[in-house]
């Protein structure tokens, strides 16, 4: 086999006639029709870069319609990969290289390519009909409109078809290999090795040798095309990043949630029950968990979201780790039942992978507009803890933390993630299973002495005992009607209701005593604090780092705990003259902070279904400095 690329800074071997330019960071986006395999191309580039040792962050962007009409802008699917020799926290604002498989993909993505950036197009896809469909008046490859970019017109369709000749594939099958050609070319361009992708092809298509061979050939043809043709005079290298020592893998947010749940179940010696109803962008949690039945995981695809959360409540009542996951519209359906979990004081985890709303909204796009829904979106005084994950890998820790709080305080906990971190990926330092925090759960033992069991007796935290069926002597009935404290019997007494409302609130307040104090990063004497939560972590952190690198004075606090807030948050905020709260909503955390701490703030909002660009936050910070 021909040698795979030697991804070193110095140019060597057969490549010697081409110059190698070393870069600190590169952002590449593949885009094409939703059937063009762009998600796979992006995933392969990110795996390969991660394996090589870069820090990596990815951002898939795909249409809501599975098969929007071919060649239209609505059907364009993209996958962005950012890899670097230093720590990075986002998939990057603008892209350095754009691979566009058809005119529609070019039209919808060009705006994100840096001026002077590399633009690789499949010129075979630029026929009059598709150019027209993309809304161009004239062929962009022929007019002067792309003069500001390094344009590479490549006959990907023709070259791929030629490469797979003799394998007796249909034209359609042959064309399906084009994404491997594109991958090969990009791999060469950035000095990546083809090994991981070749391994992937073996695993994935091993049972269909002709297809496997076709993809192998397409990949290599793309690679050698870059190496041998005159078109590309230089290529690039992005050296390894210095990450903390350890074994790493690449992980997506939804996978990290699923694995975190499995770990949470293991470390608390519980069986995991996951009740859910499919919804973008949360379904992958179900897909992932359903593969791991050997951990005793029970996944239940319910008839709707109400059944899903109710089944999780039933599982929790019976002593399991009951979990449900959904996205905005599904969470709305669950609200009544979440109230039941608050009332029955049963520990469940409700995961909301937020997407653009309201209503069906933007199913495949990201947003943070369900924060107030999570904290307040139920009838009655119905408090519960709410926490948020900040990055794909962080979902692993966040969901275990949700379970620690739920099981120690006997309360449902909402974990907020979002479409951006759910589908995005980053390197994750694999923990040693033995090092995961243990969560010892005590169920009261049975009694036979006839002593009356009090299901709503309370411990120091105000948590009630989690007595489970099968335990003699502890038979009790739970329900949504107001309970008498202690006995749990139905009670309509005015004073008791006040007491119970107070108790449920105090119990949630008590969570603040058992979570870490809020930390601040950045300059000590800063007058401006950036206060963020959830998936905007990467953009905010990077923006703050950049400002500091340029000599600016700014600090950053990123919240994991949204209800209750860390106990030092109020006093901490008072140290700053200005507080900037960037959110992908119309100012929901901002509202909470203002009303809670009676302070002035600067709310910075964006609701376009897209994450913040680092530059947007940077500019905002500069404005306020």
């Amino acid at each position, binding site marked *: 086999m021909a040698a795979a690329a030697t991804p070193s800074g110095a140019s060597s071997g057969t490549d010697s006639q081409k110059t190698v330019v070393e870069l600190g960071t590169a952002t590449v986006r593949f885009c094409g029709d939703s059937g063009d395999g762009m998600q796979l191309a992006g995933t392969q580039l990110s795996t390969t870069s991660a394996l090589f040792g870069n820090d990596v962050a990815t951002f898939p962007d795909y249409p809501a319609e599975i098969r929007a009409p071919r060649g239209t802008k609505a059907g364009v699917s993209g996958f962005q990969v950012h890899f670097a020799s230093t720590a990075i926290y986002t998939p990057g604002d603008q892209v350095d290289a754009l691979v566009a498989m058809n005119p529609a993909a070019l039209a919808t993505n060009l705006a994100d390519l840096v001026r002077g950036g590399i633009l690789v197009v499949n010129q075979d896809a630029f026929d009059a009909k598709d150019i027209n469909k993309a809304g161009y008046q004239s062929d962009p490859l022929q007019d002067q409109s792309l003069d500001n970019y390094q344009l590479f017109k490549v006959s990907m369709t023709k070259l791929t078809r030629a490469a797979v000749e003799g394998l007796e594939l249909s034209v359609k099958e042959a064309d399906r290999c084009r994404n491997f050609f594109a991958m090969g070319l990009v791999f060469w361009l950035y000095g990546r090795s083809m090994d991981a992708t070749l391994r992937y092809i073996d695993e994935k298509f091993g049972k269909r040798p002709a297809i496997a061979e076709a993809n192998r050939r397409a990949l290599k043809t793309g690679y050698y095309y870059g190496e041998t043709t005159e078109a590309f005079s230089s290529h690039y290298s992005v050296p390894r990043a210095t990450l903390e020592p350890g074994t790493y893998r690449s992980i997506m947010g939804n996978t990290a949630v699923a694995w975190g749940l499995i770990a949470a179940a293991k470390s608390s010696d519980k069986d995991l029950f996951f009740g859910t109803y499919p919804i973008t962008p949360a379904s992958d949690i179900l897909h992932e968990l359903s593969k*791991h039945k050997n*951990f005793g995981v029970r996944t239940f695809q319910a008839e709707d979201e109400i*059944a*899903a959360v109710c089944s999780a409540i039933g599982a929790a009542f019976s002593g399991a780790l009951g979990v449900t996951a959904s996205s905005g519209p599904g969470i709305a359906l669950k609200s009544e*039942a979440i109230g039941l979990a608050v009332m029955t004081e049963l520990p469940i985890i409700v995961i909301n992978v937020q997407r653009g709303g309201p209503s069906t909204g933007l199913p495949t796009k990201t947003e943070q507009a369900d924060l107030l829904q999570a904290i307040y979106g139920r009838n009655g005084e119905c408090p519960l803890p709410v926490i948020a994950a900040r990055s794909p890998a962080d979902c692993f820790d966040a969901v275990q933390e949700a379970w620690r709080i739920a099981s120690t305080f006997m309360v449902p906990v909402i974990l907020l993630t979002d479409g951006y971190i759910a589908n995005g990926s980053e390197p994750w330092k694999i923990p*040693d299973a033995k090092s995961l925090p243990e969560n010892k759960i005590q169920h009261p033992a049975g009694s036979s002495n006839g002593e009356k069991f009090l299901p709503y007796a309370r411990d120091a935290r105000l948590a009630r005992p989690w007595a489970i069926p099968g*335990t003699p002597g502890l038979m009790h009935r739970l329900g949504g009607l107001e309970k008498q404290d202690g006995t749990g019997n139905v009670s309509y007494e005015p004073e008791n209701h006040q007491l119970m409302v107070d108790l449920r609130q105090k119990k949630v307040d008590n969570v603040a005593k058992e979570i870490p104090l809020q930390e601040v990063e950045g300059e000590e004497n800063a007058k401006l604090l950036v206060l963020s939560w959830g998936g905007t972590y990467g953009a905010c952190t990077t923006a703050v780092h950049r400002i500091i690198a340029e000599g600016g004075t700014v600090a950053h606090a990123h919240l994991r705990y949204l209800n209750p807030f860390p106990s030092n948050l109020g006093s901490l905020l008072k140290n700053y003259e200005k507080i900037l709260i960037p959110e992908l909503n119309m100012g929901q955390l901002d509202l909470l902070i203002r009303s809670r701490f009676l302070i002035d703030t600067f709310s910075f909002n964006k609701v376009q279904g897209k994450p913040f660009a680092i530059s947007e936050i940077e500019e905002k910070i500069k404005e306020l400095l």
Partner: protein
Amino acid sequence: MSTDTSLPILKASDFASDQEVRWCPGCGDYSILAQIKKILPTINVPRENTVFVSGIGCSSRFPYYMNTYGVHSIHGRAPAVATGIKTARPELNVWVITGDGDALSIGGNHLIHAIRRNLDINIILFNNQIYGLTKGQYSPTSPLGKVTKSTPMGTVDNPLHPLSIAIGCEGTFIARSIDVHTKHLSNVLSRAANHKGTAFVEVYQNCMVFNDEAFEYATERDTKFDTILELEHGKPLIFGKNRDKGIRLNGMDPEVVQLGKGISEDDLLFHDEKAPEPSLAYLLSRMSQPDFPEPIGVFRAVDRPRYEEEVDEQIEMAREQQGDGNLDTLFQTGDTWIVE
């Protein structure tokens, strides 16, 4: 069985909780409560392994009155809660108590899916053809034209037949009884309790206050023999005070015939609760007053795999094929790299 001897022998009263029962005096719910308490000691499941789950409605207060584990959940959702309990803990004996509004209006979706999954649970539907708890609006089983608080000019929407729905879902155990026919009721409940799979039982229940005498035809001495037909497996469909009337098939449709005059028992439709196809059960579920006597008893009792057993089996299979779940192995699957 000899292993059962270690279990204390329980009485109906052992299943009563310390809570005062608060249904209206004379409510049919009392009788159903009494019969369930009576049969529970006979099925040899310890109280602590028994869970009653309900939704919202007069009938759904039921779990509070049982000295077992219980969940009084939210309106219509009891089958979903029960599904979670039974799937997570298959060894538990799980009962769902529901009303006609709870099960067939707001909870219709959960009901049909619970039945089709065939979890080993018992669903007892207290059908009083009215919304009791909310004080007398019509329900999805109220007969057409019924005048209620919310339908002063009579209902205009066609009622549902609970058993037809359950049979449409291919329920494996489908039965009907009547609150005041205590002996019949306890027999049906025992059979439901002993059935492996979802047992769906409709009980005609009198709501004294908002729909009194809705089932008078089925309970009054003068009329009940003509309006009710007791099903018995393998026996012809005969009814009437003198057991002189029967049901015969005419093409695809049932008809009432007088026995004698050239018609013998052999000409009648024979009940077969074990018929693999649910068509006979469906036909029976469609028979209603005033054209036909309404069958009570077991319409259908067949065997089909239980959801929770299948789930467990897959877990076992996964363990055999992949080995017991190991976190370190899981984290290391796929591509990893080492940073030194």
